[in-house]
């Protein structure tokens, strides 16, 4: 009885649609005519004859590979700085977390678009140092980096998880290490980092999956096009264009399943390698 809403939701909104989507990915469904079985045609086209797929994949992988490590590095660095019994912890923590909380909204994407425009704030600041910045968002070589910067700016939630993790490390370990004459750097390397690996692992997996799903910033900053020259064509944006712009629902379903497989491979890979670098105390 208590489970009824969830069960209905599970069959009606998750399992059912997932199976239908798998079926549709083998058809040429266009929302108007009933789907027609085309076998592997969608997948073959994706693999061999779709330059936009390749572009979207490369943009998304670039974004994941750049934004996740930088974001985690900042989060860890700030968390360590904050974890030293300093005054004003609550205020700092709040300020660093705020961008994460506001992050997904259109307003922030709009703001970012203006900051990195040719005559925007970033270039105004650079010109004070005599540097003439490019027009970041409308230049295909730079546009992706503005989106990476936006993502890194939102390092607040992994930071808070790191903070919680750091509090779990017993202080007497550091005291013992100090007595033995271990330098701060050595203590970080030998105590903090190994004991924190489960938290690092958790943050890395969550942030990676999330980076694969990014949509709103790219949509707003490129005006929904993924331009200039597909340089901000995030995978999810391409999927949206195919499904709701061109009404190639079957093709978009195939794209969705490929994304799932890629995310699954990434996750499985992290779990497999984790046994070599993640330390659980037992």
């Amino acid at each position, binding site marked *: 009885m*208590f*489970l009824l*809403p*969830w069960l209905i*939701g*599970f069959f*009606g*909104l*998750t399992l059912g*649609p*997932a199976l*239908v*989507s798998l079926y549709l990915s083998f058809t040429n469904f266009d*929302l108007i005519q009933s789907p027609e079985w085309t076998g592997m045609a969608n997948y073959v086209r994706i693999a061999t004859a779709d330059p936009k797929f390749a572009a979207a994949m490369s943009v998304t992988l670039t974004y994941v590979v750049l934004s996740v490590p930088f974001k985690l590095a900042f989060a860890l660095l*700030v968390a360590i*700085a904050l*974890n*030293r*019994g*300093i*005054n004003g912890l609550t205020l700092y923590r*709040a*300020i660093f977390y705020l*961008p994460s*909380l*506001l992050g*997904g*909204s*259109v*307003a922030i994407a*709009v*703001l970012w678009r*203006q900051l990195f425009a040719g005559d925007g*704030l970033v270039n*105004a*600041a650079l010109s004070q140092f005599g540097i003439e910045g490019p027009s970041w968002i409308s230049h295909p070589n730079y546009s992706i980096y503005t989106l990476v910067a936006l993502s890194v*700016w939102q390092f607040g*939630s992994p930071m*808070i*998880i790191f903070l*919680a993790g750091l*509090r779990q490390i017993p202080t007497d370990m550091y005291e013992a290490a100090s007595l033995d004459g271990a330098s701060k750097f050595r203590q970080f390397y030998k105590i903090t980092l190994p004991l924190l690996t*489960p*938290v690092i*692992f*958790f*943050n890395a997996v*969550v942030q990676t999956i999330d980076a694969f799903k990014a*949509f*709103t910033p790219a949509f*707003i900053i490129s*005006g929904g096009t993924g331009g200039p020259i597909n340089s901000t064509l995030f995978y*999810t944006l391409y999927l*949206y264009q195919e499904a*709701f712009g061109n009404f190639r*629902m079957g093709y978009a379903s195939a*794209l*969705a399943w490929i994304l*799932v497989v890629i995310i699954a491979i990434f*996750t499985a890979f992290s779990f497999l390698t984790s046994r070599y670098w993640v330390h659980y105390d037992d």
Partner: protein
Amino acid sequence: MTDIPMTAVTAPPPPSTGRSPVASALIHAALIAASIAMIYPLLWMVSASVRPEDEIFSSTSLLPSSIDLGSYVRGWFGLDISFGRFFWNSLVVSVLTVIGNVVACSLAAYAFARLRFKGRNFWFAIMLGTLMIPYHVTLIPQYVLFLNLGWVDTYLPLIVPKFLASDAFFIFLMVQFFRGIPRELDEAAMMDGCSPWRIYWKIMVPLSLPVLATAAIFSFIWTWDDFFGPLIYLNDMNNYTIQLGLRTFVDSSSTSDWGGLFAMSTLSLVPVFFFFLFFQRLLIEGIATTGMKR
């Protein structure tokens, strides 16, 4: 995965023994500089929204030479439909989502945490599995389903799934919390002949207000900020939420009215900001214990 008790976040930090005032000052200086860099864009936006129009891009300074609220008036009435309408629509969707999420997820969580039924572990595993499925996989069939039901361009596709506990993440969160409530309480109540409904309502709900509040606050903020769902399901501008309204404003006035755009952007962040201000501690505990995102 990572087991971080609730207390970890609020526990006192390690004592700062034997650090020189110089090192301490350096850390503070670095943190202050970083904080300013972090919030500078936000402050700049707020400041740009109250500047006289010709002054918006002329300086990087945060202090406007004079306060001019004209941008707010122009922004509010800048489209055929006023932003008041969009705010109202967002509020309706967000509040209904909060109710749906809290009610449906807590019922499911209660069943998973406390009731004994056949295949409980199996269903629990399935529920956790759904956490891993990216929404893209179910997106298109769900759209087709709602289209056939005639629900497109209504709020139903955005709200009804919430009443069916589709945010498995909150179920998981609540199960974790419910498990921490002593079993003796509901066992004693059961002895006294309380029905499961009564136990749920009289024992679990009052004792788990913190987790219910966390779920409610995050539901509200995420729904308020959601762009993708409304983008797909809402067509008529009268139904637009604030995020779609902002986007329309960007498209229709990208070269002209930056002041109005910043004014409306600032307003759109106000509810989220106030939630943040009042529930900071709760939000941070929620994040730290669960790895909640955004």
